[in-house]
């Protein structure tokens, strides 16, 4: 395994020092790249890029209220970011967080409405939380089983199931679960107050965020200290590594995807119990896809995921400001997200190139007559790409 990206990711921060400079370099480059790309777009629209960015920053971090809105968005981003990061550590691509989030929301709502409608909070909340995690886990298990039994690429199966989950959810709130007292409004009835997460400080903040932080710490601990985490990291080094270590990578695929799906399901659960209080159209708005950005900005390190989630939350909330203040569609944030991800990829490549050049130089200085560079990683990244299908 030569890819330093993978090593840094798998060690989840345990050997930070050699990789920190590379990580910072790649992230710095990504930020710069996204800023410049966005600036070009703003300029094309005849807006002053500096003014636009200033508005975005102010809109996201300029007031106590906007800051809490950023944190409200950071909660689902953290859950889905952790979900993607966990799977990717094992070289599994969970692009189905959107569907798992939806199914988490569906299970949570269904439980709240039909199983524990009258129960006190002490019963209702745990039931709804478990249901949310279960919904996501079950939905993620489908592609995991297909991968293990029939080697179906999880990239395609997880993604296609997103569409299925969303259609299923729409069917529920347009059809059998529609609120009879809702005057034709497409959505279920409100869940009972006992099943709702309390709001904090009179804002839209809810304990879902605290849960997200808890799971970030827990996942970090599990990945770095537990036997299961060790296996996941080993399996991420390639199929041979798992075979040599002598464990069943099929079963590991199932458990890792289930946990990953459960995390995404919790995102949906928290959105329902903390914000929407009913199943309605606003649940599937791309938070699952945002998790991919968060995970790779955080370089798959669970502890860095909440930080990346706040950054992305800022981008989203700031982007909404552009809509109200400059009349620019808020969807610019999604284009900027893509630019960020491209920036990370570009930054990685640049860092790799820089390290290789330095290694060549060092080799040339240290040993004049041996062919330099033969020890550096020329096939960098090929191993991780092998497993795509």
């Amino acid at each position, binding site marked *: 395994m030569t890819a330093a990206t993978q090593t840094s990711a798998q060690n989840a921060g345990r050997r930070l020092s050699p990789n920190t400079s590379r990580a910072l370099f790649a992230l710095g480059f990504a930020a710069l790249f996204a800023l410049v790309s966005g600036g070009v777009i703003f300029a094309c629209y005849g807006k002053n890029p500096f003014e636009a960015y200033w508005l975005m920053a102010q809109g996201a971090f300029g007031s106590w209220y906007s800051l809490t809105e950023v944190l409200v968005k950071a909660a689902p981003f953290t859950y889905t970011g952790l979900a993607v990061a966990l799977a990717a550590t094992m070289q599994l691509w969970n692009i189905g967080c959107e569907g798992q989030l939806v199914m988490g929301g569906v299970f949570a709502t269904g439980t709240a409405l039909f199983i524990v409608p009258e129960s006190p909070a002490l019963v209702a909340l745990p039931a709804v939380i478990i249901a949310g995690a279960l919904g996501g886990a079950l939905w993620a298990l489908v592609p995991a089983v*297909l991968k293990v039994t029939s*080697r*179906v690429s999880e990239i395609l*199966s997880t993604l*296609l199931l997103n569409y299925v989950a969303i259609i299923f959810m729409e069917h529920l709130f347009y059809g059998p679960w529609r609120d009879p007292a809702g005057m034709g409004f497409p959505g279920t009835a409100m869940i009972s107050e006992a099943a709702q997460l309390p709001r904090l400080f009179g804002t839209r903040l809810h304990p879902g965020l605290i849960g997200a932080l808890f799971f970030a710490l827990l996942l970090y601990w599990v990945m770095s200290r537990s036997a299961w985490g060790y296996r996941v990291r080993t399996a991420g080094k390639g199929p041979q590594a798992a075979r040599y270590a002598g464990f069943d990578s099929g079963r590991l695929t199932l458990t890792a995807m289930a946990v990953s799906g459960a995390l995404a399901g919790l995102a949906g659960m928290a959105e329902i119990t903390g914000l929407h209080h009913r199943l309605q159209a606003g649940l599937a708005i791309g938070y699952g896809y945002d998790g*991919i950005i968060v995970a790779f900005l955080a370089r798959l390190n669970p502890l860095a995921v909440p930080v990346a989630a706040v950054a992305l939350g800022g981008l989203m909330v700031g982007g909404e400001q552009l809509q109200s203040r400059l009349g620019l*569609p808020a969807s610019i944030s999604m284009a900027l997200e*893509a630019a960020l*991800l491209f920036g990370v990829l570009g930054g*990685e490549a640049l860092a790799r190139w820089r390290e290789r050049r330095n290694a060549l130089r060092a080799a040339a200085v240290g040993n004049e007559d041996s062919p330099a560079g033969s020890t550096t990683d020329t096939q960098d990244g090929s191993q991780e790409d092998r497993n795509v299908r």
Partner: protein
Amino acid sequence: MFGDAAFILQISLKSSVAVLLAALGETLAERSGVLNLGLEGMMLMGALTGFAVGYATGNPWLAVTASCFVGGAMALIHAFFSITLKANQVLSGLSLTMLGMGLSNFLGRGVIGRSGIRLGQMPIPGLSDIPLLGKAVFTQSIFAYAGIVFTVLLALYLSRSRQGLMIRAVGEDAAAADTAGINVVRVRYICTVVGGMLSGLGGAYLSLVYTPGWKEGMTAGQGWIAIAMVVFATWKPSRVLVGALLFGLLTSLQFYFQVTGVELVPVYVLRMLPYLLTIAVLVLVNRVLMRRGADGASGPADLGVPFSRS
């Protein structure tokens, strides 16, 4: 009875064109060893460009050309990241999809709901007079005919021509192809960009012919279905056509049930079917290949592996 069958056949063909074009493009790119998951994004940008240019100029040829150009330009981004920078192709492709989704939503905000040009059907003289079949098969848009022609051309090109052999060599074993004097980087760039142009064309079909107009996310996952189609087709253009027609048939049944009011299956299940059956087909193909002793559907040996001369 026959009328219904002809109706279903016509709508099947009509519904398969965008997926067919995109999947043919992806086949070309993947045969050269580049996995491009950005199809959905390229199709969306192609759809928006086709509609917007047609709306602004009223010239269908300009609209189609612009769509191809934009699709190719987006593929060029992926090519640069995955070939030149040797970045992870999955991530680069996903970024491209997000870029296409975000950018098309952003740029297209102003033209939502406008009515632009629409390209109608072009009956083939003579053939279209055949009863039933003529109306179903030979009264389609120019895109449908082009899709069939491209399928044949790509199949022949890949299997018979010298350049096709070069492309396959690059996809199977880039290092060996390089040793044999083939310019791996150039072959991969060209295949990726031409593949992107076909995706852009598929997008233009959606916004100019299939459902004229621009709607956010109007591709509805067809880009992803197209990628799955390539696996289903085991990287063979002729089988891509079969897969696309199957997809078209499903979509047409949806229409048929809606029009006739027959509800054999609930509407929401019908809406899920294209995605579910795509997954089912992937399972089936992998199972069959595994039974034959292959390691699942894996495609060209060097698919997704960046090439670097060491």
